[in-house]
């Protein structure tokens, strides 16, 4: 019995042109000859990382940042009945909880001002921080499918989450104005400091969001830890209580470690007590916030090149 299998026929005539040699599909050995198995040393690609380039990248993504922020905002509130009211409900409800429960349990020195205002002034920056971190910390992982397809400066994603939190912040500031009216209190002339405090608040939040966002990509455990850290932070920050609860000796150090301490006390000083920001607390916080922002951004840019490899 013939056991021959398949043979390729050889055309008898050789008058047919146009039949080039058949290259072998899996010529492993030939490949090795043609190309080395390792790139030449010195050819390593290094993503350029200069401040000028980073600033230019961000400046050019203004349009994208706006589109992403709008998207984030619309996507969050579509198909909800209350819509943007949710931005107000969260801090107001927490304030009510503080007034009803915390105020009964501990005595807080509000220098004679209503506790509701005092607490709300702490809750505003806290809500901004908490919203930014909980969403922004995981944004790169959540958007990994997009990050794998579209080229853009990666920082627009954390930036957009902070921008969304800023919109919420602005809305709840409207409620703050109503509260001031309701309590027939007027902010003092020290209100001029508010933009500076706001900048410090944003700088620290942004810095921490940058660090967290990029860390979560490489170490997913960090993402799991974020809600825990936020709960911890609510107690570790003078939101429900005042700065005087922190011992005098470590106040500056504590404000440097947790810049929200300086931010919240500065808001209360300027808006509620009619005093300039407490520099022994706000100073270290501001310095620390700048370090967070610069350091966080550098860290982010340093590792953003590998996001698509692992995400």
């Amino acid at each position: 019995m013939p056991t021959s299998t398949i043979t390729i026929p050889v055309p008898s005539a050789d008058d047919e042109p146009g039949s080039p040699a058949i290259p072998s599909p899996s010529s492993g050995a030939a490949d090795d000859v043609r190309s080395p198995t390792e790139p030449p040393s010195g050819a390593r690609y290094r993503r350029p990382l200069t401040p000028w380039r980073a600033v230019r990248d961000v400046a050019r993504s203004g349009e994208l940042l706006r589109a992403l922020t709008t998207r984030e905002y619309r996507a969050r509130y579509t198909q909800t009945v209350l819509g943007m009211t949710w931005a107000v409900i969260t801090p107001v409800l927490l304030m009510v909880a503080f007034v009803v429960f915390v105020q009964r349990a501990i005595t807080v020195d509000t220098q004679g001002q209503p506790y509701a205002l005092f607490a709300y002034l702490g809750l505003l920056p806290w809500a901004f921080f908490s919203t930014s971190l909980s969403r922004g910390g995981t944004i790169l992982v959540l958007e990994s499918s997009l990050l794998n397809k579209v080229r853009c400066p990666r920082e627009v994603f954390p930036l957009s989450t902070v921008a969304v939190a800023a919109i919420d912040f602005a809305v709840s500031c409207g409620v703050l104005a109503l509260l001031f009216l309701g309590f027939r209190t007027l902010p003092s002339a020290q209100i001029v400091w508010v933009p500076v405090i706001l900048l410090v608040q944003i700088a620290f939040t942004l810095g921490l969001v940058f660090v967290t966002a990029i860390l979560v990509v490489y170490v997913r455990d960090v993402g799991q830890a974020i809600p825990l850290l936020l709960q911890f932070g609510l107690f570790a920050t003078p939101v429900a209580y005042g700065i005087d609860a922190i011992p005098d000796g470590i106040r500056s150090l504590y404000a440097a470690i947790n810049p929200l301490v300086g931010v919240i006390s500065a808001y209360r000083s300027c808006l509620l007590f009619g005093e300039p920001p407490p520099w022994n607390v706000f100073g270290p916080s501001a310095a620390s916030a700048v370090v967070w922002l610069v350091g966080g951004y550098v860290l982010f840019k340093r590792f953003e090149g590998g996001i698509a490899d692992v995400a």
Partner: protein
Amino acid sequence: MSPDRSSGSTTGSSGATAPPRPGELLVDGAWKRFRGDRRARSLMREGPAGLRRKRGYRWALRDIQIHVAPGEAVGLVGSNGSGKSTLLKLLTQVMDPYAGTVRVGGSVGALIEIQAGLHPELTGRDNVFLYGAFLGIPRVEVARHFDEIVAFAEIDAAIDRQVKFYSSGMKMRLSFAVAATLEPDVLLVDEVLAVGDASFQQRCLDRLRRSIDDGTSLVFVSHDLAAVQSITERTVWLDQGTVHTDGTTADVLGAYRRAVEERARSGEQVGPLRVRFDGARGPDATLPTGGRPVELSLTISTDVARRGALILGVSDGPPSPIVVVRREVDLPAESTTATVTLHDLPLGRGRYAVWVAFHDTTGDELLAWRPLADIDVGGSDLDAPPPGVSRQAPVHVAADWRIGS
């Protein structure tokens, strides 16, 4: 949009060179590696040693050298895992190479998956503007093209519907319409057209061709070789992470098709049937010629007597044949020769593959559909279809023309 918006930079020993022009793609000695696979890294199970354990690497791309000029259309073919998608990710610059440089001039539109850049919670309208922002195109510019996009995507009233309620065809049409209509300097298309229906596919190809004529560079990845053929003049064949061949589409696809068939044929022939091709002959033992009869002969060997259908086909490469003949046969437990004469072989000049299969009466596949051999066919050349048509007309029919009144 500014021309150097997404330009990379020069590194290493290559020194400073001019930035790429808009639409230019310069891949120089690019290497890419991924971490080797790991088993679950768990502190609980392995202790600190598990975290320190080194993992190997696998090279996805090795020493890739491809230059694409502005307005050039380049096909990218290769088997699964040959590095096509990784290369596209380097070109979109969502990934950095390990070594070498990848420089892309101008804005890059990537159609890598149907939903690239579409956000399910937003309406089609919002998504159009968002996508434009990703391409770096100003809002006013997008607004100017908006009606054109909606018309091309055939979305109409659904444009204000959330994208999560779109069918996959609608999503694909919308993202294609945005990317193609906004005419970025570079378009990267990866196997997305497969989702659309045939008429939309054809319109996409037409649109792509127009963009190319307007100066957009195109890198087109597809397993649909006919589509690659219809839209590109140059094709790069990737094999195991290296450039196997880079040449004219006709040459590269021809070689690629033959290699694919070769591979299918060289696969171990298991099963109860063995088939040998004994050749194709025209009348008087000449070479097969289009428009004339041709005789195909084969020998089938089996250990036990079989009854079933012998199916023989002729294809210009892919498994879908141009011509099929089928015959119920009784095979005794030995070798049987089978010869079939096709009257008026309707093929143009070129190289074709003979495919074969054998199914027994119960429908069992005793021999799976496989390429058996190549045959060269002489005769007239096929006339070319209009540009952009994804299927070459494969059949040759003798035609008489009468033109004029």
